[in-house]
């Protein structure tokens, strides 16, 4: 009496729901797009005939359109990085409006960007990356955000010979071009940046007593390791050291207070995101160290959170700052403002310093296409690895963007040291290029 048809029907209803969801059908993986031949030019870094099992060189290219994918957090606590992707998208929109990107084969390509959200969770990145490659059939990934997120898909991208370009991370991990040739970072190595700080201190403050605050992850530890390596054998000394865990949900206040008592006269903030400017605001008025901050927080948007304590901080810069009056007068920034406006970016967005990073990623993909005569996957990566002083986006014009056929896999290895003055920067030490040395600065 208690058993009724309804209860019995429940699983049937589930079955129907599942069946309804099961529409679609698995595509036959055997339908390979026409695999094109890459120039057998001797000296090309990647040779797909040798390096790839099932090379799909022109997947994602249809007529004059190239489909590329990107992965970023559009939800969750790191959703601020979505603005990087806005910049990337805007770059492609602006170029598409002008008729497309001119590639080395003489044709102009329009770029279609497919954005996916992994919530900054590296456990979800592989699924969305596979979706982009296998279902959307993108040509490459561009501007994927997060060190762990990029690491989580590295073997997959490499095994399938799909380029992952303009990584939005500067982990020293990306220097392994021989092992993972399909990965090219669009940022300088964090290790090279830390080395630039030490180089500056060696002349400006040779007996500096350093208080070091670093983020307790790959990002912060890259700084820590490289800095310690750079100061061995010098008179620079670390007198206080604190790490900060961004997952802990607390602030850096206690760490800053401790460091202020360490007797240090120099304060290095190896922290990113909003905790970085917040750290500046915690510095007590009685402590007046020379403060060096990570370039990831040297933007107008980030420094506006420092409670006015951003004045005089020092940063190693590789890019132009659209909010700086001197930089804004350069042709590169003027072009950015003009083209960005056609893609619908507001002045605030463009000056903020986050959108412009993504804009640069788009520009890098542009340059990579222009550098290859064969527009296919291997061709584009080989093109990138043949850069010879090929400045892109808002990279400072005196940075030598040179890759030397992957012997020098880092694109950006030059920094100038600048000091925050008002809403702009004053140069303290001119551009110094360290071509081919980035890997040696890492631990």
């Amino acid at each position, binding site marked *: 009496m208690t058993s009724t048809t309804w209860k*019995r029907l429940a699983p049937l209803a589930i079955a129907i729901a599942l069946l309804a969801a099961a529409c679609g059908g*698995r595509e036959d993986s055997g339908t390979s797009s026409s695999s094109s031949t890459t120039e057998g030019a001797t000296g090309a870094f990647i040779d797909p005939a040798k390096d790839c099992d099932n090379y799909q060189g022109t997947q994602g290219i249809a007529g004059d359109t190239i489909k590329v994918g990107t992965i970023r957090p559009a939800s969750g606590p790191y959703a601020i990085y979505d603005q990087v992707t806005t910049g990337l998208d805007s770059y492609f929109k602006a170029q598409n409006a002008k008729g497309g990107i001119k590639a080395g084969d003489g044709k102009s390509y329009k770029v279609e960007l497919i954005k996916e959200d992994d919530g900054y969770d590296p456990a979800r990145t592989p*699924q969305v990356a596979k979706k982009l490659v296998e279902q959307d059939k993108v040509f490459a990934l561009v501007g994927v955000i997060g060190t762990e997120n990029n690491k989580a898909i590295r073997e997959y991208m490499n095994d399938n010979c799909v380029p992952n370009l303009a990584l939005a991370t500067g982990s020293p991990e990306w220097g392994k071009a021989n092992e993972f040739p399909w990965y090219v970072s669009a940022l300088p190595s964090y290790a090279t940046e830390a080395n630039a700080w030490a180089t500056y201190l060696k002349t400006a403050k040779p007996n500096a007593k350093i208080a070091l605050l670093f983020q307790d992850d790959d990002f912060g530890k890259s700084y820590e390791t490289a800095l310690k390596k750079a100061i061995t054998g010098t008179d620079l000394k670390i007198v206080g050291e604190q790490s900060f865990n961004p997952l802990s949900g607390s602030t850096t206040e206690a760490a800053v207070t401790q460091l202020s008592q360490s007797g240090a006269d120099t304060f290095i903030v190896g922290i990113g995101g909003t905790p970085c400017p917040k750290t500046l605001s915690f510095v007590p008025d009685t402590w007046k160290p020379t403060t060096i901050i990570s370039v990831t927080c040297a933007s107008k948007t980030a420094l506006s959170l420092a409670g006015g304590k951003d004045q005089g901080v020092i940063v190693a810069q590789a890019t132009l700052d659209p909010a700086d009056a001197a930089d804004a007068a350069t042709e590169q920034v003027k072009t950015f403002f003009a083209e960005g406006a056609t893609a619908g970016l507001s002045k605030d967005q463009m000056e903020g310093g986050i959108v412009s990073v993504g804009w640069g990623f788009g520009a890098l993909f542009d340059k990579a296409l222009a550098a290859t005569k064969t527009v296919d996957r291997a061709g584009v990566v080989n093109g990138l690895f043949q850069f010879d002083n090929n400045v892109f986006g808002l990279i400072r014009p005196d940075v030598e963007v040179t890759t030397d056929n992957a012997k020098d896999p880092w694109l950006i290895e030059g920094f100038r040291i600048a000091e925050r003055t008002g809403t702009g920067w004053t140069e303290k030490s001119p551009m110094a290029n360290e071509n081919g040395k980035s890997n040696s600065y890492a631990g």
Partner: protein
Amino acid sequence: MTGMLASVRSNWTRSKWITLVAWVAVGLVLLALPQQFPSFRVEQFCAWMALAVGACGLNLLTGYNGQISVGHGALYGVGAYTTAILITKAHWPMLAAAVAAAVVSFIFGVVIGLPALRIKGLYLALVTLAVATLFPLVIEQFPQLTGGSGGLAITSPRLYRGALRDKPIIFEPPTSALAEDQWKYYIFLAVTVVCFVLTRNLVRSRMGRSLVAIRDNEVAAEVSGVPVATVKILTFGISSGLAGIGGAMFALNNARVSPSSFTIVTSIYFLVAVVTGGAASIVGPAIGAVLYGVFIDVVSPELPERLKPASPVLLGVLLIVLMLTAPGGIVGIFRTMQGRLAARRLRSVSDNPPDAAVSAAT
């Protein structure tokens, strides 16, 4: 009178027949799914199964035994890290590592469950909350073993283009007819079904009745001879063991673990899965896990660009609406309908003369 009995009997056999057909249909669909979807989707299904097994464990504890745990994300993490470390560092085979993960999680669960003997309700929730909060921080303290905040890729040495290299683990299919992701799906499906069937048997056993008795009235249960302390701790252990198996599946599915996957948010996902599916029902957590997975992996990416950052808000609103309209979750909706229908049939049977009921039934 005999007519009425006959009608009931024929109805019963008919509904039993419907059940059988329905479960066969569910089974066929589940078996067919990996043939129908691309590999990334199949891997998402695998992730949903991992979540379902973990939620099944939490349901045993919270739904049947009435102990609230906000710490199952941590136990899930214990399972995942045990698997990852044993495979990568000690070169254990996958199955053995997964079994070890269940055992280690069981032990952790028993230890965490000890305070539960004295602490109840919200206070117990706070203790487990502390466990959930501490877990990722503890993991980061042992970078040599766990990979620290950077996480750990689960690798095994394999021949790759002529050289032996540490490559992410894969589920080598026995025949070339199956792709790697499909084979993984079938293994996961088998494990999931076994976990749910064992839980069902447990709940219907003597121990299952003890669980419910303790939930409903601990004093009465003790007076009736239920060994409250043993049952409570054992429940915590078994529940954690299931979470550990779920964690092992999670780790094997991604071939990578990192502390950010096991924060307090993960614990809350488990509660969401249990509550939306329907607490204190066997299939409830599975339905909840699938619904949650569908929202995160299927619906959420299709949202218009402007709404994407608001998807957690949307999830929250949907949950509130569900809890207001169906406090018993999805299974609760079925139970309510079934109750109404039973009541109506009873009424119609007693209102009408037996002959009418017989003719209506035929």
